[in-house]
């Protein structure tokens, strides 16, 4: 029934196009990398595959944030924590795959444990030599943390800026914890020097292409899931909680559960993004918990347009492409550029790129309709503000109208 809606609704064309493009990219880019000869003009070099694969993981993270921020008004400044936890779960699997090929040649203990005089594997590393255990942990650990954190935060009705601050505190606390050597996660060096994933060499071009394709497919799936959630009655409720939380309570809805579900789903998506990210960049360390990383995710979503599904993806890709270029040209000014970008977007494009595009197109359509009606001889009020607003929103029921962050009650 959901798929029926998916293919039927013309208003959701943009989502369909996005999914189609992601799936196409998942096939074409690996082909251009592996099959086409390096001398050809169409050849995609391996470093580009790795770089864009990384961007796709960032896009997935931005989409995860958008589900809670854009659609439910929960400004999480700690989404990097869920990303990093998913990454660590994958990193632990990759560490166990090294086996006796490490510097110290210990078949069980990863190098850093030998170095730190561990006698045996800590209990929480058990099972990580199996991919399926790691895969479950990638979903379960961020999901569980988000569930427990959200349970307490939403039940105590912590909202607005206070919630943002405690999410920030959460990721900072995890940063400090993972920096400690005796946590058993490799301290500040983190986990690196990976060899194999599922028996394939992580450095090989074919593996990198496969990881790229997996990231693109996963992002396409996440777009579909987010679209299905947002378009359901629950999605309407999510936006209702964003716009008038107390009204939903007096209608009998449990606003805390509404938020908790979205927050947990979002954290799981962020965890998957982290898990796909780590084998592509070859390292995971506590720096991923850095609060500034989480804030950067907010900027991606804001630039692209929160409360739209495609926006955060566009934002993440554009800002990161900009970052790669900028840090090559003027590395010391990147942070200023990023800060300036955030200020500029907030002032000039409050709805982000996609939001602006929608209102611009809505305006154009209303004007066209008005002039067409005039030619036909019937008088239509030329683009009254009402029509403009309504038209701006019809391109997709998922494109929310006014996703302003709600002040704390």
């Amino acid at each position, binding site marked *: *029934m959901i798929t029926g809606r998916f293919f039927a609704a013309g208003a959701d064309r943009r989502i369909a196009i996005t999914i189609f493009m992601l799936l196409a990219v998942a096939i074409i880019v690996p082909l251009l990398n592996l099959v086409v000869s390096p001398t050809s003009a169409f050849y995609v070099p391996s470093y580009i595959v790795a770089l864009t694969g990384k961007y796709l993981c960032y896009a997935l993270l931005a989409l995860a944030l958008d589900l809670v921020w854009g659609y439910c008004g929960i400004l999480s400044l700690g989404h990097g924590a869920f990303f990093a936890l998913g990454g660590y779960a994958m990193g632990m699997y990759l560490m166990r795959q090294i086996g006796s090929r490490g510097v110290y040649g210990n078949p069980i203990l990863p190098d850093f444990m030998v170095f730190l005089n561990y006698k045996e594997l800590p209990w929480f590393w058990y099972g990580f030599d199996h991919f399926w255990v790691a895969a479950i942990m990638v979903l379960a650990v961020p999901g569980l943390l988000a569930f427990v954190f959200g349970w307490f935060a939403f039940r105590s009705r912590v909202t607005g800026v206070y919630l943002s601050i405690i999410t920030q505190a959460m990721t900072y606390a995890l940063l400090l914890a993972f920096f400690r050597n005796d946590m058993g996660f490799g301290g500040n060096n983190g986990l690196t020097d990976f060899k194999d994933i599922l028996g394939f060499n992580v450095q090989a071009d074919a593996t990198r292409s496969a990881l790229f394709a997996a990231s693109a497919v996963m992002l396409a799936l996440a777009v579909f899931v987010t679209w299905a*959630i947002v378009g*359901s*009655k*629950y999605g*309407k*409720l999510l*936006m*209702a909680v964003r*716009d*008038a939380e*107390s*009204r*939903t*309570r*007096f*209608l*009998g*809805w*449990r606003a805390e*559960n*509404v938020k908790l*579900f979205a927050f947990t789903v979002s954290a799981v998506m962020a965890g998957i993004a982290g898990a796909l990210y780590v084998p592509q960049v070859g390292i995971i360390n506590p720096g991923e918990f850095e609060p500034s990383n989480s804030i950067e995710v907010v900027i991606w979503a804001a630039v692209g347009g929160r409360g739209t599904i495609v926006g955060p993806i566009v934002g993440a890709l554009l800002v990161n492409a900009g970052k790669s270029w900028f840090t090559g040209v003027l590395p010391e000014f990147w942070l200023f550029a990023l800060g300036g970008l955030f200020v500029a977007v907030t002032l000039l494009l409050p709805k982000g790129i996609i939001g602006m595009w929608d209102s611009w197109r809505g305006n154009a359509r209303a004007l066209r309709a008005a002039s067409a009606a005039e030619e036909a001889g019937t008088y239509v009020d030329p683009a009254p503000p*009402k029509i403009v*607003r*309504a038209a701006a*929103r019809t391109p997709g029921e998922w494109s*929310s*109208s*006014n*996703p302003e962050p709600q002040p704390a009650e």
Partner: protein
Amino acid sequence: MSKSNTILYLDGVSVSFDGFRAINNLSLVLDKGEMRAIIGPNGAGKTTMMDIVTGKTRPDEGEVFFDGQVDLTKHDEAEIAMMGIGRKFQKPTVFESHTIEENLMLALKGPRSIFPALFHRRSAAEARQIDDILGIIRVGDKRDELATNLSHGQKQWLEIGMLLAQDPKLLLVDEPVAGMTDAETEETARLLKDIARDHSVIVVEHDMHFVRELGVKVTCLHEGAVLSEGTLDFVSADERVVEVYLGR
């Protein structure tokens, strides 16, 4: 006083915020099927009383019973709403970025948990209910309009419509005609009288003309307690009521 056959029963209720007694030993009884108008100057405790009934505020002391037997002080907002108490806020509060139809759909009586909502498909019965309510609140032609584009008066009606969709036993309606034109006020009085035929209703209102239109028993609150109770003529003839309103 017997609790049976009452829809709402408040006895000796007090609540204070930072030492300020917003409600002071308030007792109020509403019979099943009754409509009551509550008047009183600003700060008389009208909204606080609604907060207590709907579970937003816990009273410091006193009894609050719904339907003769349910102790409301032991439940929270969502539970109380599910028991059948609907509330319209003073400032019209609707879901601005949803259409009128979606607003009503979210309010419709039904399961209130996440997973049914996630896989919910609208049934024919629900569509019919929504159509009925759209007719009652007189915005049927605007069903696909976003709520944010409605006039103030239409938002008030939409909110009343959402209350009806909940199918509550008791409606608490806070200042339903604030900001309405005279014609809209009359319409609203007619609408509420219609609703009162098969619901119990409490209306808080400043507009005396509107209260007269309703033609029901009136309770005047002052400083968190009942000052006077009876017909509007009786209450407005009461010396003390005149005094608090005119400040003599």
